[in-house]
């Protein structure tokens, strides 16, 4: 009885592990890319409204699109997320510089 319980527990643990690994390795879909890309573009538009876009954001967005065109949605999603992070950093920069620039001024 004790042996059977142990076997069941091991089987359960193994199946949980396998399921977890499978979901982690699951390939990204086109829909995942579209959603990640839209989020990155929206963040970059926010930077544009502050007149402070970065060239690297645009380049990373272009790379994401290229990866999606070749069907590599894992890379496309990862690049979209990177572009979103860059866009958010440029927005943060523009916002913090609204006051921070004064520290550099020659007086």
């Amino acid at each position, binding site marked *: 009885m004790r042996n059977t319980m142990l076997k069941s527990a091991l089987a359960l643990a193994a199946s949980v592990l396998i399921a977890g690994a499978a979901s982690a390795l699951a390939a990204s879909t086109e829909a995942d890319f579209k959603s990640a890309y839209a989020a990155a573009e929206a963040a970059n538009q926010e930077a544009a409204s502050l*007149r402070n*876009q970065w*060239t*690297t954001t*645009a380049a990373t967005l272009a790379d994401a699109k290229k990866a999606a065109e070749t069907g590599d949605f894992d890379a496309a999603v990862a690049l979209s997320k990177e572009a979103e992070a860059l866009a958010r950093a*440029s927005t943060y920069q523009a916002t913090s510089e609204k006051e921070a*620039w004064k520290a550099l*001024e*020659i007086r």
Partner: protein
Amino acid sequence: MNVRSATQLASAALALAALSFGAMRFAAAADTPDPVADARAFQKFFTDKFPKVKLDDFVNGPYSMNEDMRRQWEEKEQFPPYDFSLDLGKEMFSKPFRNGKSYADCFPNQGIGIRQNYPTFDEKEGKVVTLELALNRCREANGEAPFSYVKDEMAALTAYMAFTSRGKPFDIKISGDPRALEAYQNGKRYFYTRRGQLNFSCATCHVQNPGERIRAEVLAPALGILNAMPIYRSEWGGMGTTSRRFTTCNSQIRGVPLEPQSEEYRDLEYYLSYVSNGLPISGPGARP
């Protein structure tokens, strides 16, 4: 509460109010732009930092900071690389438009020896007008298509106009119009604001590090940096306008450049030219 403590309380409240009012006035005064004081402090910063460089020599950019480069430049000036552009600019300037008028009709003193007065503040429009912008407006007003702000034709025209002003000190005016002061302040803010993925402001290179190398280049001081415009840059293999300089600076620090002659760039040019008031026009220039 007796009369005495009421009086004390009222006096304390009054004193507090007076203090806060004073502090508010001080803060307002500290925030009010003072271009004259700015220009004085700006020029003093550079002359203190580089005591061996004469004030007028700052217009020679990296050559005022580096002896070897200066010698090479002086030799190069025997046959300056901007000469072709200068000749082209002179020819273009004197050639009438299709309607018979010419650039001379658009500018005071027929456009000769006036570069040191640009940018100017147009009170009608309420905005800064640079020489490049004025040239394109002149073309359009006479039925001609505007030139690209970053290409050879505009550089040639401004090279010729700068040449006719060589030696004349920058004389940028900030009129009593509060919008002129606002434009000046916006230009100053742009100059000191960090941007791009490299998190550089214009001041990072041209205030904090002039004379230092960034890769193979020696950085020019911000003081007098526009006096030499437009410039022939060996790196570009050709001439470049102020617009070209601003947009390439932005992309070099991984920022998306604004459109040439956008309000921000016009204000930046206004600020940078104003703080170099008194320094001679040396354009067209040559840079590595």
